């Protein structure tokens, strides 16, 4: 059978070929449409001809395996796959608009725009990692944005799926990726670490905020390997107004040792969304590159980079959650807050990569006009921050802790909103002490437990000597006993 001709106006398996979008080294991209679907679509056709790069076939196979198994707003929706014998292709949702590559002539971008872009990409990466996939080719030309704002990661030809055969690894001994963005461990042939994507995002953030690529553009293996021991120039040296918190974030992403980077993309997204809460370490103060003595020591001690054990991707993610402790400071709740801290401490002991966000909702009245000052003239917001820090102090969390006070009329809704925005993995919340309060104000913990998109632990100090009066006002508790 003759191969169906791919040209504008032709029809292949019900798809109308509209126009050629892009002819790259590994594949050609066509805009296609189908009468029964309003969705804009893209057909990716691999270059299989004799003499073409054999990686074109394998990377097409990888995308064939991975794309149909992905879901959510951060990936193009998979539509169809062509018969391998007749005409191999993948049809996927076309994401309109430009990739980030188009922004290159305008670099450097303003800092607030960079943190916004970075947080969206980190959120998309966390979602991808949750689906067992490491992208391994994060760069401006593989990132688009939906009109609603979410980052979309495209091109899974170099990706690694933790639960599927890695044909790329089997086929090639040389690392595949994009030279300026490739993580050190990727250069050494390790394709299974989600933190490689955080390194690539760090390169992107550095590039977009300074206009300079941190490790240059060398395409030779020798040139690329320099990043194993040579640290990039601190951004603050390139731009004197560079915010120290941004340098802290970017240089942490660019750490050579994956263990020194963020343990999880959601934690990076969290820092980008809360710049003021970023714990500034020596990284943020650096104004020059490391002295040659350190560089030389690293140059001849690259063994330290060889991976030791490789836990499954899901295990890795589960060990680095963001836990939210919702603390009520309004009422006389010393016992409850003590119990909350004990429960939180138990969780954190088993999860050394977890981080804790402490949240208090400063309740606003619907009717009265609230001022930032209380009756004594103190700033309520600052008082709350101080109280939260005091609550968390015995946990000794250092840079794993952030504190947040938000103002809202509905505390439960505010907590749930914070959880969704920051991709919180686990909520610890106290139950109101007295049934009277609960019946007057409604239960915050009950609403949070019912509606949260994650696990919720409701904490209540043990009360085994409840008074008669309370039993009559709280029949539902009686049943529970």
């Amino acid at each position, binding site marked *: 059978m003759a191969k169906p001709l791919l040209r504008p106006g032709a029809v292949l398996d019900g798809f109308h070929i509209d126009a050629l979008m892009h002819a790259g080294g590994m594949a050609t991209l066509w805009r296609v449409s189908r009468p029964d679907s309003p969705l804009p679509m893209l057909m990716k056709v691999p270059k299989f001809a004799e003499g073409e790069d054999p990686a074109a*076939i394998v990377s097409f196979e990888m995308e*064939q*395996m991975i794309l149909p198994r992905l879901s959510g707003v951060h990936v193009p929706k998979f539509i169809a796959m062509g018969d*391998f014998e007749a005409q191999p292709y993948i049809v996927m949702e076309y994401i309109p608009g430009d990739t980030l590559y188009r922004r290159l002539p305008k670099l450097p971008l303003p800092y607030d725009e960079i943190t916004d872009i970075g947080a969206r990409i980190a959120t998309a990466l966390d979602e991808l990692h949750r689906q067992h996939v490491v992208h391994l080719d994060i760069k401006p030309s593989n990132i688009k944005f939906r009109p609603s704002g979410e980052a979309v990661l495209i091109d899974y030809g170099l990706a690694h799926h*933790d639960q*599927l*055969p890695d044909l790329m690894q*089997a*086929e090639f001994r040389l690392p595949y990726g994009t030279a300026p963005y490739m993580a050190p461990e990727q250069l050494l042939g390790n394709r299974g670490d989600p933190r490689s994507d955080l390194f690539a995002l760090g390169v992107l953030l550095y590039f977009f905020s300074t206009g300079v690529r941190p490790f240059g553009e060398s395409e030779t293996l020798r040139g690329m390997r320099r990043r194993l021991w040579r640290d990039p120039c601190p951004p603050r040296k390139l731009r004197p107004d560079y915010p120290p918190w941004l340098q802290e974030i970017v240089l942490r992403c660019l750490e050579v040792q994956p263990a020194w980077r963020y343990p999880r993309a959601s934690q990076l997204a969290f820092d980008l969304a809360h710049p003021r809460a970023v714990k500034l370490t020596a990284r943020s103060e650096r104004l020059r590159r490391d002295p040659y003595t350190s560089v030389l020591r690293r140059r001849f001690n690259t063994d330290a980079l060889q991976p030791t054990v490789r836990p499954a991707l899901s295990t890795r993610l589960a060990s680095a959650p963001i836990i939210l402790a919702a603390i009520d400071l309004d009422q006389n709740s010393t016992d409850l807050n003590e119990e909350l801290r004990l429960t939180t401490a138990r969780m954190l002991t088993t999860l050394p990569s977890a981080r804790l966000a402490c949240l208090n909702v400063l309740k606003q009245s619907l009717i009265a006009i609230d001022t930032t000052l209380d009756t004594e003239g103190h700033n309520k917001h600052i008082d709350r921050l101080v109280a939260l820090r005091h609550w968390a102090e015995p946990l000794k969390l250092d840079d794993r802790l952030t504190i947040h006070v938000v103002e809202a009329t509905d505390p439960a809704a505010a907590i749930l909103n914070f959880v969704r925005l920051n991709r919180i993995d686990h909520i610890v919340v106290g139950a109101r002490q007295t049934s009277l309060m609960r019946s007057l104000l409604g239960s915050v913990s009950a609403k949070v437990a019912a509606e949260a998109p994650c696990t919720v632990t409701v904490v209540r100090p043990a009360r085994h000597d409840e008074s008669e009066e309370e039993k009559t006002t709280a029949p539902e508790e009686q049943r529970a006993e």
Partner: protein
Amino acid sequence: MLIAFFADIHANRQAFEACLAAARARGAERLVLLGDYVGYGADPDWTVTTVMDLVERGALAILGNHDNAVSNHSEQLNVEAQIAMEWTRCQLDVSQRRFLADLPLTANDDERLYVHASAARPQRWAYITDAADAAESFAASSARLICCGHIHRPALYSISSTAKLSSFVPTPGVAVPLLPGRRWLAVLGSVGQPRDGNPAAAYALLDTAKSEITYCRAPYDIETAANQIRKAGLPPRLAERLNQGR
């Protein structure tokens, strides 16, 4: 069509029952049995009777080295297996022994080849331990999918059109697409004596319409299976290893 594969049942009734029930619950329409129904375990009589019954009703069964050893005394086995084999021979009647002796070494089914061990000279019962062993099987057959067992550790190999090999240890319960551009070799885990560190019984499901294979694990009553082995007076090590999955 959904095809269920079972390899290395080794007379473990509890494990085989659990796998059969699980595969049927998941909609298996066809059963393929990849050899070694006896040896090691304490229920050869029940197992062979069950296999005969399944074959009667359309299942496909091929010969394993332990099945061959029942009638063929020159078959080489390790000491524990040899003790178990001598006991097993006394548990099977003439018709059961004839059924085992008449099983084919290999079977072709559509574009698939079923064999107990390596497809390269199947009667030599060579283990497939790595990609190089897999390459020999690929060279010996043109089937798009070869299914075998024998080593008791699940693995999935593929060979590309440019003869590059990939190897992979499957995750239980996750469907793997058998991409059309390459040929595949599925090494099944063992139903009755898993040796990959996971004591649950192993089987696999192939969805021919989607061209996807799922390696599955079924928990079973290990305690009873181990007790039966001890009660039969077989080497205690054969009972102990069931709990360890080694």
